[in-house]
């Protein structure tokens, strides 16, 4: 196999109002990931091709794209997997496209912020008093949810995000749970209010695709499921014992 064709969905808002596919032939190398092929195009074929990347080690979360209709991190997806090609590359689904493979991230970050992803404590412990004790088991309770790199792949896999752009979405719920299950945190009451509103977790029909595509095994579907269980109890408490729910 000498070369492989990449069919890239391009969008150049200053030139054309509609997106279009452009074919690029790149030399095949066993070591190359999709991102290497894109960098080859950018450096040697077409400098106008536009996409985001930075770490090239699967941790900064910049390089997510649809490859043959699946959301993946292109820095950890080998070309070899898709031989003989052609390989179709498109921007992440359900996000507004800025240019070529670059999508608008602000909306996503707004949803993350709605989940109040910071430690909320009833009483502030001064730093001089040392660390909050947290056992390895307590850490394990939320550790998985703390591994989210904000790559947004789960949003592109989620049919509900496609239907209801306001849906708070998998990663934001996982982040809320990351703090809800942290033994140092008292903020679940505040987060509940947001996550149980119209665009909150009850929009989710548990398709589960988010957990399938997540590159960091965060299991956002599990986080949502867990929320539905505790959420129902919380809702009940807020009706029957309103003074208990706004902690």
């Amino acid at each position, binding site marked *: 196999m000498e070369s492989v064709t990449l069919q890239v969905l391009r969008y150049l808002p200053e030139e054309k109002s509609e997106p279009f596919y452009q074919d690029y032939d790149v030399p095949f190398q066993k*070591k190359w990931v999709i991102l290497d092929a894109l960098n080859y195009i950018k450096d040697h074929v077409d400098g106008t091709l536009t996409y985001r990347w930075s770490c090239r080690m699967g941790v900064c979360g910049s390089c997510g794209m649809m490859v043959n209709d699946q959301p993946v991190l292109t820095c950890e997806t080998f070309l070899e997997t898709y031989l003989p090609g052609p390989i179709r590359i498109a921007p992440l689904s359900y996000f507004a496209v800025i240019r070529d493979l670059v999508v608008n991230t602000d909306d996503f970050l707004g949803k993350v912020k709605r989940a109040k992803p910071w430690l909320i404590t009833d009483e502030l412990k001064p730093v001089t008093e040392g660390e909050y004790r947290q*056992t*390895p088991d307590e850490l394990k309770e939320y550790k998985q949810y703390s591994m989210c790199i904000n790559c947004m792949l789960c949003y592109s896999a989620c049919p509900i995000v496609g239907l209801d752009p306001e849906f708070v979405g998998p990663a934001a719920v996982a982040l809320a749970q990351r703090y809800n299950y942290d033994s140092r945190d008292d903020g679940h009451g505040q987060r509940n209010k947001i996550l149980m509103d119209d665009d909150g977790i009850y929009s989710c029909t548990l398709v589960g695709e988010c957990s399938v595509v997540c590159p960091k095994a965060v299991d956002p579907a599990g986080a949502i499921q867990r929320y539905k269980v505790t959420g129902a109890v919380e809702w009940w408490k807020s009706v029957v014992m309103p003074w208990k729910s706004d902690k």
Partner: protein
Amino acid sequence: MTRYGPDEHDVLIVGGGGAGLRAAIAVAEANPKLKIAVISKVYPMRSHTVSAEGGSAAVIKSNDSLDEHAYDTISGSDWLCDQNAVEEFVNEAPKELLQLEHWGCPWSREPDGSISVRSFGGMKIKRTWYAADKTGFHMLHTLFQTTMKYDRIHRYDEYFVTSLMVDDGRCQGVVAIELTTGKINAIAARSVILCTGGCGRVFPYTTNANIKSGDGMALAYRAGVPMKDMEFVQYHPTGLPFTGILITEAARAEGGYLLNKDGYRYLQDYDLGKPEPKPVLRSMELGPRDRLSQAFEKEHEKGQTIEGPFGPFVHLDIKHLGEDVINEKIPFVRELCLKYENIDPVKEYIPVRPVVHYMMGGIHTDIHGATPLEGLYAAGEAACVSINGANRLGSNSLTECLVFGARAGKAAAENASQGKSFSRNLEAIAMDEGRRIEKAYLSNRSGKTKNSESIVTIREEMHQAMKDGAGIFRTEKSLKESQNAIQELQDRLLRTSIGDTSYTFNTELTSAMELSYMLDVAEAVIQSALKRDESRGSHQRSDHPGRDDDKFLVHSLAYKTEKDLPRIDYLPVTITRWPPGERIYGR
């Protein structure tokens, strides 16, 4: 497309990595009235702090002391750090890491729930806090998420800073391109803090992300602020050859061997001890980073390394540890090899080579993060305080981002609180900058012409020059040749024109500007190295072996000149309690 808003802030932080976000929170807490903004060319959580794995050092356990941490840092630096800075650093480090704990950082724990610490190269006592093998990732996300609760911290995400606005002898903001629209914006601020990270991308093989192009260093340099100690570049001995991805020291701590082309543990030939089947601390594969990288170079000179498509390499062998130990103790090593090099270390050798990892030098600041230019501050890897001297110890730099990020934040807040008014000239300065960008990069708006230079070629030649002349070993001759090459590339850069003429997310434009920053950094590295006729820490001059404390117990300061090579001045090192001694390993 230049727009003068102006957007006015009291404190503007350039960079959303560990240092920048810590500084932003420090400003918010110092004075609730101040208007704060963070500007970053990538969304903050994409910053390169995210990729740090090992950990962050601070004294927390009862068997440890601040003096021990200070001494390890100072001897590790080959006595080139400022000891007053190190004393402040070790003193504030525990508070900073605890503060991060109170903000929710998921530090790894002991069974009793207290903070867990691990050993790290050059630290005599275990004091490195860690969050599994994703420490930088967790620190950055904790900081980023914490900043979200401060509505007063305004963010300019995906804005690329092109210059500092300096008038009336003080820095009063920046000019930046908003990537989504291509608008050139003037953003005024009473204090500016540069937290733009390192510059590993000046070299061809590096653990550093694509965004680490020394932007802030060059911005300060162009505004007349010197870069300090730029000749000190840290190599990590075990990077993957093609990607530069880091294979952590833990692989060797568990018992990995480094083998030359004949399968021979060559480190025994370089005064690093005798080969034993099991790992021995401070010996052979567990020697210090600089010495291991230097041994690789010597082995290469002897023709004993293996030639590959991405240059010479040696083998890291962990096969004998067995699949179970590998999966249990160093799973990330296997994951990285599988995912990024398509090899399985349970069955195959891991190809490794020294790769550029960290810049000890940076923007010259005092212990409050202040630069000599009024209103301008710096912190993190972009800055040089200096606590790292000629060689930084692993796990000190994440802590440095917190300690000096917070300090710079406080100092910048204090300065801004004076409420000085902005110069009338800022608008004109911004318009000039807009014209400069148009002329330098976009003037040829019909596309490439026949004689125009390609940024890709210039970048490749810069990499070659830095590798050949300013690598692990340097000589006067190699450095001079590289200096000539870089000067020539500076000229050629003036003749580039880029093919992309769009205003929307023009990454070809930003790549060209990053290249111009890197060339400025490169000339400072080379000139500082050329003038330092001694070998110290990471700076090894084959033609001047041995440390020379009489002449060179000083910091180098590289100043930009109009047309000529940078001018190098010197500043004495501050010694408080630890007179210079010998650095001994393995004996």
